[in-house]
């Protein structure tokens, strides 16, 4: 809703000489949303619905076979969060047969925006109703990757965005459709949803990838599939955000214990239970990789068989400069803690009624807040009880 960033984006793309955005495929206004979810959702949304949906229509018409929409937005601000939620809803109304995946940027725990917790809970609760899957990227995690793994001294947003773009690329670059076949997967978005979101109550997906290092270190490293997959698996079960500092103490318990015991034991050791996982392998000798570790039923909830819960995509083509690389998209308890924290902080602010007048000014009432809290507490409870 504000022209500076779009202007920057368009010119940067055009400068690359290799690709650019369509001349008319942008929409911007003069005055932003002031970090106000209510303004983005209730004021900008209806006002610009027609123009935005017209632009979408034009792009859709250019497609042969539309699988769905990938919406990139942040949760902390006003436009990305509020208008993003509104647009997702409009897409649901107008293109109900297409899939909608939202990539959401989870803000830093400490202050980028003071009302970020309010904006986040309003966004999440609305997206839970109108989106099919939420692919979450945490700013804190990306920041740590830049600091610890990439060895960047003075981290800028450009560095962080680079890490996130790498993660997205490692998931969405083409892969083969079936074992050994030479056709590329035609519908990655659909396949991803099918594998990872078996139940609408569980929509929150996290991404991890390995290896992740600066170019200078890359020259001195060699990788084996066994090593990479072992680390990736441990990252999954110990809920590590990156390759460093993984807690190797966390292990799945052995089957045979009563279910109640499993839950409490796992809670103590912070074991990350999964609903479904997708591993994407790119690089040399990809067929020799052994994925047995991911098929262990102890990793998953009881109501889904590993054969249905786990999928793998492969391609021999290396990604970026990594001879071998693996990415994991997981529907698991990855995001329970961050979600719980955001809901907790937002609730405590709500209890003191701080900033509420800024939202009610534009039509978002206290009941809307309460609805959001209810929905999200339900999601937290469901994930905790896996």
């Amino acid at each position, binding site marked *: 809703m504000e022209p500076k960033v779009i202007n920057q984006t368009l010119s940067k793309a055009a400068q690359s000489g290799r690709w650019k955005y369509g001349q008319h495929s942008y929409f911007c206004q003069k005055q932003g949303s002031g970090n106000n979810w209510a303004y983005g959702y209730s004021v900008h949304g209806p006002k610009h619905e027609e123009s935005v949906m017209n632009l979408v229509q034009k792009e859709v018409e250019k497609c042969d076979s539309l699988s769905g929409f990938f919406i990139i937005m942040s949760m902390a601000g006003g436009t990305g969060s509020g208008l993003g939620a509104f647009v997702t809803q409009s897409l649901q109304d107008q293109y109900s047969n297409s899939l909608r995946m939202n990539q959401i940027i989870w803000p830093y725990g400490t202050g980028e*925006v*003071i009302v970020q917790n309010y904006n986040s809970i309003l966004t999440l609760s609305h997206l839970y109703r109108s989106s099919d899957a939420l692919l979450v990227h945490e700013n804190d995690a990306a920041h740590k990757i830049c600091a610890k793994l990439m060895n960047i001294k003075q981290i800028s947003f450009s560095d962080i965005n680079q890490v996130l773009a790498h993660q997205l690329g490692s998931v969405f670059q083409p892969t083969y459709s079936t074992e050994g076949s030479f056709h590329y997967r035609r519908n990655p978005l659909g396949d991803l949803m099918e594998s990872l979101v078996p139940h609408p109550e569980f929509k929150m997906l996290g991404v991890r990838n390995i290896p992740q290092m600066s170019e200078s270190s890359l020259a001195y490293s060699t990788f084996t599939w066994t090593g990479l997959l072992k680390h990736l698996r441990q990252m999954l079960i110990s809920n590590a955000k990156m390759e460093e500092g993984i807690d190797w103490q966390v292990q799945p318990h052995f089957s045979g214990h009563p279910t109640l015991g499993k839950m409490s034991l796992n809670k103590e050791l912070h074991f990350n239970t999964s609903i479904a996982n997708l591993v994407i392998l790119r690089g040399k000798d990809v067929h020799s990789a052994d994925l047995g570790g991911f098929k262990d039923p102890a990793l998953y909830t009881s109501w889904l068989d590993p054969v249905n819960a786990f999928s793998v995509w492969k391609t021999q083509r290396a990604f970026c400069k990594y001879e071998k690389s693996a990415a994991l998209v997981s529907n698991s308890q990855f995001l329970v803690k961050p979600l719980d924290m955001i809901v907790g902080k937002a609730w405590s*602010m709500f*209890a*003191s009624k*701080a900033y509420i007048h800024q939202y009610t000014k534009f039509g978002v009432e206290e009941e809307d807040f309460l609805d959001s*809290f209810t929905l999200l507490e339900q999601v937290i*409870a469901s994930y905790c009880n896996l």
Partner: protein
Amino acid sequence: MTQSVVVQVGQCGNQIGCCFWDLALREHAAVNQKGIYDEAISSFFRNVDTRVVGDGSSISKGKICSLKARAVLIDMEEGVVNEILQGPLRDVFDSKQLITDISGSGNNWAVGHKVFGSRYQEQIVEKLRKAAEHCDCLQCFFIIHSMGGGTGSGLGTFLLKVLEDEFPEVYRFVTSIYPSSEDDVITSPYNIILAMKELSEHADCVLPIDNQSLFDIISKINLMVNSGKLGSVVKPNSLVTSSAGALKKRQEKPFDAMNNIVANLLLNLTSSARFEGSLNMDLNEISMNLVPFPQLHYLVSSLTPLYTLADVHIPPRRLDQMFSDAFSKDHQLIRADPKHSLYLACALMVRGNVQLSDLRRNIERLKPSLQFVSWNQEGWKTSLCAVPPVGHSHSLLALANNTCVKPTFIELRERFMRLYKKKAHLHHYLRVEGMEESCFTQALSSLSTLIEEYDQLDATKSMPMPDVPRLSIAV
């Protein structure tokens, strides 16, 4: 890009406004080397073809022809405004942007508010409309005035009500100058309290600034310059202290240095909205993030650097010093001690070559020494603007919504009561038509309510964080 209109009221308001326009021109000249009229300049200036007769049609693109400030100048005395119009800035102002009278308000809020308010209401509305029409997308009115006198205080606050009625969607940012305690206007406590009621009710955000603090800052700078402290040489281009290259007379007028600081404040406040950066912050975000409850919109500001060292390349250690300075008592533009009071919210607006990691590192470093209210433990709003101010490599403006304004307000109330109990000078006000004693009592109770609200928040300071039970879900 949005535009803002500056309304300067009264002697103080117009003098500061004059400094502000001078600095704004210099800043844009330094940044905009090609002389093309771009979006950044358009936020405060119109590009006008003066050869065309009449209003001067606005040119929206291309080379700069003649810049006109988006401003309305109001004063009930002619002296200051005439001086501006005869000075080097005369081309920047349109004669149609002025409202003046001859007699002045006699340091009487009632005269400024009631008499001149009603007399000039129509004219004021008309000039404001004109200024707004020239804007593509008007976001904000900046009102500059003083609290102690008659015009700035009375007519300035009358203006707020008018703005609220005529332009309800446009933000009203008020920069209010509070007199020092050695002020020569005896009735200033009355003027201040009467004005504060209007500020609490009709402004979106108020930046109170204390003449005493400005004076102390300038004294410190002069001390450093004169003592020739090792390694600290005031940069000749610094917009803060020297007027080398400025469009003003060589001999500085007494308040010039102080006004420069306030002008810098306004420039830094709007920098992220005008120039690009990695984390932009628009003016509506300031109000959204820093005002948790409608009446508590008084923001304590602090600005660094106020003077700069001769080194061009400032290593990170000095960068950290900038952040520490922003929270020290010496850099606050109002006499208050935020470190020992309760923070409701805090915004850091950084300009120049500062990276995200520097910003975050400093927040982490400073957080433990500051007390935030229990429901806003991480109440930081940050912004990074790539363009530094003229003569500096980076700068920081910190805006805090902090209960440290409470002692200041309590003191103002006491000064008011000392006069009011004796009914001293009251007749000057009561003889003005429309003025009654109830105006005084209402103003007093408005201030007391405000103090009470800050009090309640302060009371939560030492209490442990309340455990608010979350919603429980039936599984």
